């Protein structure tokens, strides 16, 4: 048989079709890329929190309060953990006029104490325990931790400026008086004037706690949210 160009191609086509038919019947194993299926496995993470007794011991909430908290938490995040996007989403719904995503990002980092990218119920409840039931010292500690973005123990002007801008972002555009560019900066200046006792350009934890304890406003407002749960 004298096979010429096109006949070769024709025969090749027939062979390919034959192979495909065999694969359909499972007689020939097709080698697929399995990585796609692996990804699917990873994304359905389920997290179950520690037992009620342990959480009761570790936090200052009563059993009933933990129950209520967990029910709310699980309702919003059925998988048991919150990732940053969901967190931003939820927090933004409370501030419809502005953009709460930057502040939510800082909050997320403050709650995510082990820095694994997701907030589990334990992290959530620990954070809330400090904020709602902790001593003033602990609360101030937590606030310092929130402001100290890179967790190096010092609040610099840049970090404070970031935080301040994110807070002002939550106000949105339609404010009275109209938000100017330098308003956050001015606010940071005032803050540093108040807090930075030794004028070295950074605020340490001791300066911070010291100064806050001497400020009546701040002390009073720290007690404000105690009846939240």
């Amino acid at each position, binding site marked *: 048989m004298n096979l*010429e160009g096109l006949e070769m191609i024709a025969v090749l086509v027939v062979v390919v079709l034959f192979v495909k038919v065999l694969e359909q019947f499972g007689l020939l194993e097709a080698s697929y890329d399995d990585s796609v299926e692996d990804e699917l496995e990873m994304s359905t993470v389920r997290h179950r929190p520690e037992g009620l007794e342990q959480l009761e011991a570790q936090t200052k909430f009563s059993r009933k309060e933990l129950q209520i908290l967990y029910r*709310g938490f699980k309702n919003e995040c059925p998988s048991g953990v919150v990732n940053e996007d969901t967190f931003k989403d939820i927090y933004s719904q409370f501030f419809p006029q502005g953009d709460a995503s930057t502040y939510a990002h800082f909050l997320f980092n403050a709650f995510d104490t082990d820095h694994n990218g997701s907030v589990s119920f334990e992290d959530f409840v620990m954070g809330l325990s400090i904020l709602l039931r902790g001593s003033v010292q602990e609360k101030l500690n937590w606030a310092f931790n929130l402001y100290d973005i890179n967790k190096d123990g010092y609040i610099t002007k840049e970090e404070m400026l970031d935080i301040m801008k994110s807070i002002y972002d939550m106000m949105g555009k339609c404010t009275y008086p109209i938000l100017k560019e330098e308003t956050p900066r001015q606010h940071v200046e005032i803050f540093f004037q108040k807090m930075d006792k030794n004028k070295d350009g950074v605020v340490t934890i001791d300066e911070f706690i010291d100064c806050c304890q001497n400020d009546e406003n701040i002390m009073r407002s720290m007690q404000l949210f105690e009846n939240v749960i």
Partner: protein
Amino acid sequence: MAAGVAAWLPFARAAAIGWMPVANCPMPIAPRDQSKRQDELIVLNVSGRRFQTWRTTLERYPDTLLGSSEKEFFYNEETKEYFFDRDPDAFRSVLNFYRTGKLHYPRHECISAYDEELAFFGIIPEIIGDCCYEEYKDRKRENAERLMDDQEENKDSKLPHMNFRETMWRAFENPHTSTMALVFYYVTGFFIAISVITNVVETVPCGSTPNQKDVPCGERYTVAFFCMDTACVMIFTVEYLMRLFAAPSRYRFMRSVMSIIDVVAILPYYIGLIMTNNEDVSGAFVTLRVFRVFRIFKFSRHSQGLRILGYTLKSCASELGFLLFSLTMAIIIFATVMFYAEKGSTSSKFTSIPASFWYTIVTMTTLGYGDMVPKTIAGKIFGSICSLSGVLVIALPVPVIVSNFSRIYHQNQRADKRRAQKVQKARLARIRAAKSGSSTAFLHSKRNGLFTGLPQLQGSEEGDQQLNKTASLLESQHHHLLHCLEKTTAHEFVDEQLYEQNCLEGTLQSCPSRSPSLSSQEGPTSTCCCRRSRKNPHLPSAGVPPTCQRSLQELSAIHIQCGDQPPLSTSRSSLNMKLDEGSRLNCKTGLITTAIISVPTPPAISPEGDGQSLTSTNVQTPASSNVVKVSAL
């Protein structure tokens, strides 16, 4: 508020502690939970089926029946449950809405029954989630059209006061209205049939005379056929003219498809009359006769099915286009391949690629005439692949066309698309309005001066009575949170119009309106107290006494600030002034710090005096009395 995340409100409020060290003003008091009751299970008995849920779950949506006090009307004292005499199946989706925040439409449910349930429980259907919204809208549209169709059938009763022209038009459009119309309808139908049959028979070879070969009947009995043709054309012309006369809008009638068909049907005859003498154009004349066959389309007035077929083809234009496109692609590919495959063989019919088109089309549509067959092996292989793929390519779009046909039988597609666009816009507008309701709710409550925090201090009973509207606890907590943010940043939320207004004012003002203050605390502190009080004259508040209103000066500029000594704690004196001060605890005492142009504004000039006099009047005045806006003319 996005009530779906109501469970996270405690968290959001706790996180507000992060703002505290940054804020320079003291924060407002938080609203207390009035009746500190434990979260309890409530039982909803819907026609015998008991549903149980937490009370707070239902309170997430305070503007629905179950979330508001309206459900108290359904409370059954003996059984201590809420009884609703409604469909328990539909209630499932209603209750799931409270639980998950998403409203789903169950497919097996009747659309109007579902709508009624939603209306009863005070839920707007626009909230239906995207997963079920398409289905819901489709069913609703179908239902609406079914109702409309029913209505249209009833519309055919005789309308009074129709003139002759209108009667004629109605007779033409709807032959069942009168016997005359029916007669006319049948007569025209008969003549259309006659005309078509005549055209057909004209070409049949009609028995041969011995000396000639077969002659078509048309040439044998020329006169008879000519008479027949003339008669039909007469009738058609008369019919067309009558329709033209009776049409309500002649211009629109002339543009309609049916009238064009009518014209095309009778035109060849007239052109033929004019042109019989000229031999040259007789070829064209013959062509024109072909158009006589279009008379058969006149039957579409008589047949509903034909019209629907026409609509279907028009609406399936995209599917037909796709079919055509894919066929063309395949034809070109296979024709090329076959041509080159068969090039080698001798005496091959595949002389060129266009010549191979014929083979490809015949093979792909599985006709297989056999006038062209491949002879080489390669050609045969590719030919078989061609026929297999032809079956597939043609089979794919056909079911779509079929389903379209059945769908058009019930609906009018063009009106759907127009209506759908309007509905989509309306839906989005409503959802946007509901979402922005949260921010406007906050602004609204600010305007009414109803910061629900304060009345909860000692002896809060009078406070409750003072409040015209009972904001839900959730809302008051959310508003408190937003208020804290305002205090932290020393700026306030305003709505769009005021913002625009202030932008304009800002450009008009040459100098900044900050008077030097004697108080030690500068900057945000003083502005945060007083700017807000400045705003109050703008806002329509319910209980503003005439004295304060008189202090309204419409022009802007310098205003007095009240230097503030913020009270160290909620001292007893400030507590006594519970309602008048509202949240303006910090602006308790007023100091005039700037010299004023005397303006005939009243008692408000002496804020200290006013501060005391306010204690006696039980009015929820904001401290606008402490501030006077003085105008620089």
